[in-house]
């Protein structure tokens, strides 16, 4: 319905919008989101023809370029075809005119209706947005914020436009009104094209058919609303989502490092991006199709650092890993949870090259790792479960922490020493000469573990695999270490595989969770989703055992033998049926999770068992 092509706009030669390509479709809501200063409102005003500055490109509506039209002709489009709900609630209404008059004004101004009919229509519009008719004669100062917002919407609808722009319609209203406004927008969207500008990501998620994320005057990511906010692919979008508190995310809030700056050359986000490469400073990325959505990133969005495919590992007769797939993206935390013996540590060791897998392959930073070498450990580090065993009693603190630098031959001795000291301070340890000279047997378990973490971080690795790194620490030290790791992730894009049996901890630090049981991945999904809707019976049981202050004590049956060719949880599963003992379940996609469980099988026979078990469990597909 409206098409924006290669649109550029600048105020007195400082560019505000660059290379915008967007189109609005009838009966569709396009959400435009991003930090303030990204140019969202400017784009809206440009569509309205209300900007004075240097514009190039075109905004095409009904076959005509609105940018080329003189003001007198634009007058016909304003409010009749394109109208807008302005952001500034307090200022957008004239304080000395009744709101009814202001809603009526455009109908009379464009000579669409007689005064009587306009009055009637105004009343109808007030009803439409959920305001009593009597409010027509109220003045703006008589109304609450939510009521003003409704008046503004009624006003925007007065001439029944085809295109409706909402600028932050929910930012100044309370939660209840917000829902009402969302309802009204949805209602209005039935036969109109809607551009919804909002930094409220949940509103965008609830309303948008498509969403565009803007940064520094450019569109960084464009795709369907549901996908963009559930699975961001641009580092900027992910940063926005991580800074935005919602009830459906459980991970601690993280921001985006740095601030928006004017960047002449290269990617506008380069100064804040944790996966920047040399090219990012030279070439400006354009929106390109990457798997169902458009991303403006030279690296094709968030890069995958680690891929493990179908990893097998046997120890004699026991199969420790039965074909596990794993992936880890830049700046992501993946929590590997599961009981002892589930294969978590083995998987970590296989990835690290400390155990040679019996099948499958492991790709690290785009290259398959066949054997372990020095190069690999520059970017990949591990913190072990038992610190006393992994720190040599022959080395003092300084030598221990400096060791990776020595091996990789990075810097002079003094530089190495400084780096080591910094790493020690980061983990809340002393960097005094006295402490540097101590040996492992002088130190407490907590101190040794922190030394191990310092040693792993001294190289600034891209990926850290941490095997129960905080289980031997006091809760207060654990909190500090976890915060440090998350800070490193925010600032440097550190990716982590966090192996833990502490579900509560995993909930606060991870983006994604993989639940392992008996060497198999039984469930995988975004952390918030897994906690909100655990799908696999084992996951459900596991969540019940997580630390909480509830007076009830959960009980989980101890593991029993697991015959080959059965579900790994069959012997303990309260919902298990016959099929679970006979057949190993395949992996099913349920919501945002992948679950290895027969409950979710589409095959009728298999579903049957789930119905037959006759338990109070809704099985949603």
């Amino acid at each position, binding site marked *: 319905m409206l098409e924006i092509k290669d649109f550029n706009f600048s105020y007195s030669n400082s560019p505000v919008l660059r290379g915008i390509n967007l189109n609005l479709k009838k009966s569709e809501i396009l959400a435009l989101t991003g930090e303030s200063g990204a140019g969202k409102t400017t784009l809206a005003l440009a569509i309205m023809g209300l900007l004075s500055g240097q514009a190039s490109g075109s905004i095409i509506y009904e076959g005509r370029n609105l940018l080329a039209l003189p003001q007198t002709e634009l007058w016909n489009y304003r409010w009749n075809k394109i109208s807008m709900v*302005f952001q500034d609630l307090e200022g957008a*209404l004239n304080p000395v005119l009744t709101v009814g008059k202001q809603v009526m004004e455009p109908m009379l*101004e464009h000579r669409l209706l007689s005064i009587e009919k306009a009055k009637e229509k105004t009343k109808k519009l007030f009803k439409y947005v959920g305001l009593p008719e009597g409010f027509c004669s109220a003045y703006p100062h008589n109304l609450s914020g939510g009521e003003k917002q409704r008046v503004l919407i009624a006003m925007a609808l007065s001439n029944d436009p085809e295109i409706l722009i909402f600028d932050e319609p929910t930012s100044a209203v309370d939660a209840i009104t917000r829902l009402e406004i969302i309802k009204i927008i949805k209602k209005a969207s039935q036969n109109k094209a809607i551009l919804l500008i909002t930094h409220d990501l949940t509103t965008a998620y609830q309303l948008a058919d498509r969403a565009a994320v803007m940064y520094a005057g450019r569109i960084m990511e464009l795709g369907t609303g549901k996908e963009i906010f559930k699975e961001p692919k641009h580092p900027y979008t992910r940063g926005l989502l991580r800074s935005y508190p919602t009830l459906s995310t459980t991970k601690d809030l993280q921001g985006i490092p740095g601030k928006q700056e004017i960047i002449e050359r290269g990617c506008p986000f380069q100064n804040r991006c944790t996966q920047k490469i040399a090219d990012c400073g030279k070439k400006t990325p354009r929106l390109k199709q990457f798997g169902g959505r458009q991303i403006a990133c030279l690296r094709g969005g968030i890069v995958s650092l680690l891929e493990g495919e179908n990893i097998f590992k046997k120890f004699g007769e026991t199969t420790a890993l039965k074909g596990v797939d794993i992936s880890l993206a830049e700046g992501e935390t993946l929590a590997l949870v599961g009981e002892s013996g589930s294969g978590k540590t083995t998987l970590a060791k296989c990835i690290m090259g400390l155990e040679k897998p019996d099948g499958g392959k492991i790709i690290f930073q785009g290259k398959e790792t066949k054997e372990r070498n020095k190069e690999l450990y520059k970017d990949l580090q591990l913190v072990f479960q038992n610190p006393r065993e992994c720190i040599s009693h022959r080395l003092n603190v300084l030598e221990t922490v400096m060791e990776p630098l020595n091996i990789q031959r990075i810097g002079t001795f003094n530089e190495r020493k400084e780096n080591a000291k910094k790493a020690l301070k980061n983990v809340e340890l002393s960097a005094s000469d006295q402490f540097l000279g101590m040996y492992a047997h002088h130190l407490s378990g907590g101190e040794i573990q922190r030394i191990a973490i310092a040693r792993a971080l001294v190289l600034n690795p891209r990926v850290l695999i941490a095997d129960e790194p905080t289980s031997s620490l006091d809760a207060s030290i654990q909190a500090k270490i976890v915060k440090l790791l998350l800070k490193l992730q925010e600032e440097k894009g550190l990716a982590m595989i966090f192996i833990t049996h502490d579900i509560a901890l995993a909930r606060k630090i991870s983006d994604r969770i993989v639940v392992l049981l008996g060497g198999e991945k039984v469930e995988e999904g975004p952390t918030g989703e897994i906690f909100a809707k655990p799908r696999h019976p084992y996951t459900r049981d596991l969540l019940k055992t997580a630390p909480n202050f509830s007076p009830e004590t959960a009980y989980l049956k101890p593991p029993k033998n697991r015959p080959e060719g059965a579900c790994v949880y069959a012997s303990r599963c309260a919902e298990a049926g016959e099929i679970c003992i006979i057949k190993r379940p395949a992996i099913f996609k349920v919501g945002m999770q992948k679950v290895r469980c027969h409950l979710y099988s589409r095959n009728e026979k298999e579903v049957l068992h789930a119905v037959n078990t006759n338990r109070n469990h809704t099985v949603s597909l």
Partner: protein
Amino acid sequence: MSAKNLSDYLIAFFIIICLNFLLPRTMPGDPLAAIYGEEALLSLTPELKRDLAAQFGLDKPFFEQFLFYLLSLLKGNLGYSYHYEVPVSELLLRAAPWTMLLIGSALIVSTVLGYVLGLESGWQRGNSADKGLLTGLMFLSGFPDFFVGIILLLLFGVSLGLFPISGALTPYMGLTGWSLIKDVLWHLLLPLTSLVIAEVSAIFLLVRSTAVTVLGEPFILTAKAKGIRKRHIKFRHVGKNSLLPLFTRTGIRVGHMITGALFVEIVFAYPGIGLLIYNSVMARDYPVLQGVFFLVAVAVIVCNLAVDLLYRTIDPRVR
């Protein structure tokens, strides 16, 4: 109008009455000397002095004096003019209508003119029209009102002989009806013009700056987006909002104008309050000055009250 606002005005009124009572009594020396002046007292016999003191109640205790003063005020007794030898109230009643006519019309003309020009100038901010108006009016406002009066008097009254050079109407003509009105307006025109020239630029600047501010308000953008014609934006949206500070200012201006008219009235020998003040000062006629002070204070209070009431009708926010 809330009771609170009304009581505020009553309090202000009471304070003025008290000040009018206290001021002469706080002056050093004999109160009679303060009222009538040293020269007048010299010619008085002690008996006359005693009589006068008794008449003013000056031989009574302070509180009784205050009550006596209030009672005389209630009766409309503002004292007796030593110079004119008539009651002060009579003098004031004679002069006040002329001043009201002069100031009232000057207030209206300067406000309307300043508003229209200011709105236009603010709307066309930066244009040649705006620059021309701004420069012209700033230039005019540089002249004091009496100077403008003298120039007008010399040019149109003396040299060209188009207008009368003194008074408020042609004496001894016994004019009535329409010809009286014409005569009054004819006399009024020059003093009115000088007052308007002196006053208009302040209003112009106020309205212009308000209009410029209002033009930056988001609701103006809303109106533009709504496709409202420029003319309608200018009057309906900018114009109405620019009225608000103008009203406030007008209330304050009244008091200032009454005294400001003094010079113009002297220049044109216009028989208003200003001329009365001048003559009374010359004659040290303190009772008359006290009366004028009282009248001006009351007038300012009444005007502010009126502005307050009017403001309510144009700004819904203070209703």
